[in-house]
C-alpha cells in the first residue's frame, strides 16, 4: 500500500505546496512513516534554463568535493546552496540535501540528439553508482524533488513545501514492503524531466532492470520504481514514442484483447508488445508519471491498485483516493475511475 496524489494546471498557473501536503496527509494510513516526497514543476523560475541537481550528502567533505569535481568537468555550477530544511521531531537529518544549478558543456557530448540531457544523465548514473555518500535524487530543469524518510506532513514541513510554487505537483506516501525505507527509496523518483510515483510491486523488476541496464541506466535505489523513470526516459526521450504509446508498452493489453481490436490497432499493439516485451511490467501497480508538459496516470492491466482521476476547469488530478482530490478542490464534480492499463493524460496547453 502507498498513497499517490498529483495535479497539473493546464495553463501553468502556480499552486503552492500546502494543499498537496494536506491531500497526501489525509492518506497517512496508506504509508508507514518511512518515506514521503513531493515533486514540483516550475519551482525555479530564476534558473529555468539550468539543470536543478538535488543531492543527498552523508557529509559535506569527501562526497561533496567529488560530485563538484564531476560537475565542473562536464559543465558549470552557476549557483549552489544547501536546500533549506526545518527540524522535525520525526526526521533525523541523516543526509544534507544540497542543490546545484548546472549548465552542461554541450560540446563534450557527441553523438546524441539531446547532448545536455545525456551529460546530466551520465552524471546522475556516475554519482549514484560510484560516489559513496552522495545521491542525486532530482535532476530536471525548473523541477524540484523534496523527499525524506517520514510521514507526509513531516516531510512537507521539513522542506516547507508551502514556500514552493509549481504548476504541477506529484506526491507520494510510502509503505515499503520489500526493501527497507530510506531517503533515496522515498518517491518521487526523478531523472531529468521525469518524475514517477508508484503504489504496488513490479514483479517483473528483474527483467525490466536487465533490459534498462543494457541501455546504460544503473539501478541503485534498492527498489523497483526507479526502472519506470528510466524506461520513460528511454522510450519517450530516446526512442521518440508518445507518452501514451510508452504506457501501452509498459502495460500492454492482453493478447485476447488485442485479438478483438480493429486490424490496424491490432498491428500497432502487436508490434509494441513484441518490441518492448522486456519493458513490460507485471504485478500490481498504480503509477503516475510527470514531465514538464504532462502528467500521466495508469494502473496494471487487472487493476490491483487504486487509481482515481479528477478533472475541474484547468486542473487534472491523479490519486489513490477521492478524498485526497477533494481536499485540494472541494468543488470538483468530475471524478472517475479509469480503465485498467489505460493511460489518462493531463497536458498543458500554455
Amino acid at each position: 500500500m502507498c498513497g499517490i496524489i498529483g495535479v497539473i494546471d493546464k495553463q501553468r498557473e502556480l499552486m503552492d505546496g500546502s494543499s498537496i501536503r494536506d491531500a497526501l496527509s489525509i492518506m497517512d494510513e496508506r504509508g508507514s512513516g518511512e518515506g514521503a516526497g513531493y515533486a514540483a514543476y516550475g519551482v525555479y523560475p530564476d534558473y529555468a534554463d539550468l539543470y536543478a541537481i538535488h543531492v543527498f550528502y552523508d557529509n559535506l567533505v569527501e562526497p561533496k568535493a567529488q560530485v563538484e569535481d564531476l560537475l565542473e568537468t562536464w559543465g558549470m555550477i552557476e549557483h549552489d546552496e544547501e536546500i533549506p530544511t526545518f527540524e522535525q521531531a520525526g526526521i533525523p537529518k541523516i543526509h544534507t540535501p544540497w542543490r546545484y544549478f548546472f549548465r552542461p558543456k554541450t560540446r563534450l557530448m557527441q553523438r546524441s540528439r539531446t547532448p545536455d540531457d545525456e551529460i546530466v544523465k551520465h552524471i546522475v548514473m556516475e554519482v549514484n553508482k560510484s560516489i559513496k555518500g552522495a545521491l542525486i535524487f532530482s535532476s530536471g530543469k525548473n523541477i524540484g524533488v523534496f523527499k525524506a524518510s517520514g510521514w507526509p506532513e513531516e516531510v512537507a514541513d521539513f522542506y516547507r513545501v508551502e514556500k514552493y510554487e509549481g504548476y504541477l505537483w506529484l506526491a507520494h506516501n510510502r509503505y515499503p514492503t520489500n526493501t527497507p525505507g530510506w531517503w533515496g527509496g522515498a518517491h518521487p523518483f526523478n531523472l531529468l524531466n521525469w518524475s514517477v510515483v508508484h503504489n504496488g510491486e513490479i514483479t517483473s523488476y528483474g527483467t525490466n532492470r536487465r533490459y534498462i541496464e543494457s541501455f546504460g541506466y544503473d539501478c541503485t535505489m534498492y527498489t523497483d520504481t526507479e526502472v519506470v523513470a528510466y524506461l520513460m526516459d528511454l522510450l519517450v526521450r530516446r526512442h521518440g514514442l508518445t507518452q501514451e504509446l510508452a504506457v501501452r508498452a509498459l502495460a500492454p493489453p492482453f493478447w485476447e484483447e488485442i485479438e478483438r481490436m480493429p486490424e490496424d490497432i491490432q498491428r500497432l499493439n502487436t508490434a509494441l508488445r513484441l518490441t518492448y516485451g522486456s519493458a513490460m511490467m507485471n504485478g500490481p501497480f498504480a503509477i503516475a508519471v510527470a514531465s514538464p508538459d504532462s502528467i500521466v496516470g495508469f494502473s496494471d492491466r487487472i487493476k490491483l491498485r487504486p487509481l482515481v482521476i479528477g478533472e475541474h476547469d484547468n486542473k487534472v488530478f491523479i490519486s489513490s483516493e477521492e478524498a485526497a482530490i477533494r481536499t485540494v478542490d472541494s468543488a470538483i464534480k468530475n471524478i472517475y475511475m479509469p480503465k485498467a492499463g489505460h493511460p489518462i493524460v493531463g497536458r498543458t496547453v500554455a
Partner: protein
Amino acid sequence: MTTITIDAAGIHYTPLNKQIRQAVRDGASEIILKNVMGQRFIGDGLIGNVKITIHGVPGGDLGMFMKGPTIEVFGNADHAPGNTMDEGTIIIHGASGDATAHSMRGGKVFIRDDIGYRGGIHMKQYQDKRPVLIIGGTAKAFLGEYMAGGLVIMFRIQDEEPYAEMGLASGIHGGEIFIRGAVEEWTLGIGSSARPATSEDIDRIKSFISEFSQYYGIDPVKLMNSSYTRIAPVSARPFAGKYTWE
C-alpha cells in the same frame, strides 16, 4: 428517537468511531456525520439498529463486519464498502471503489452509480444469511470473482449495449448475478455460465428492484420490464483438479 450530529472535519477515524459507538451506547437512533473526508472504517463492527447518515466521502471499508445498522451516504464511497458485512443496509448516493461488498456474508448494499473492479468478490451465504449487492450503474471487470454465495443485481441504467468487461464471475462456485440486458460471451470468466433470466427468476428479484427504486426515487417500471441475463456457476468446484490431482 434521538439524533446526534457529529462534525467529522479533521477528525481521525479512531476518535470518530469512538464517538459513534458512544452515541449508540447512549441510545441514539440516528447519527448524522457531516464533513466526512476519507475517514476509513466508519461503523466497522457496529451492532444495533442505528441509522448513520454520512455527508461527504467516507474512506475504505465502510461498514466492515457491521451487524444491523443502516448507513446512508450522500457522496461516493471508496474501496470495499460492506466488506464482510453481516447484517444491515448500506445505501450509497453515488459511486464506489474496487472490491465493493468484498466477502459480504449478509445484509444489503445499494450503489446508485458505478462500482470499481472486483465488486462482490467472494460474497458468501450460509443458511438464512444471503447478502445482496445492487448496482444502479455498471461494474468494472471481475464482478463476482470467486463468488461463493449471495446475489448481485446490476441495472446498468445508462447502458443499453451488451456488458463488456472481462473476467465476469471468474471462479464463481455459488450464488448468482443478474445483469440487465445482454452480456458479451467473452466476458464470462472461468467456471461461470450465462442464460437469459426467466420470469420466475425476475419474480425473485422484484422486491429488490422496488427497494432500489424507492431509495433513489426512480420509476421501477423500466427495470421491472427489462430482460436480464443470469450468471451462475457451472459447478461448485471450478478449480477441482487445478491444484491437486484426483
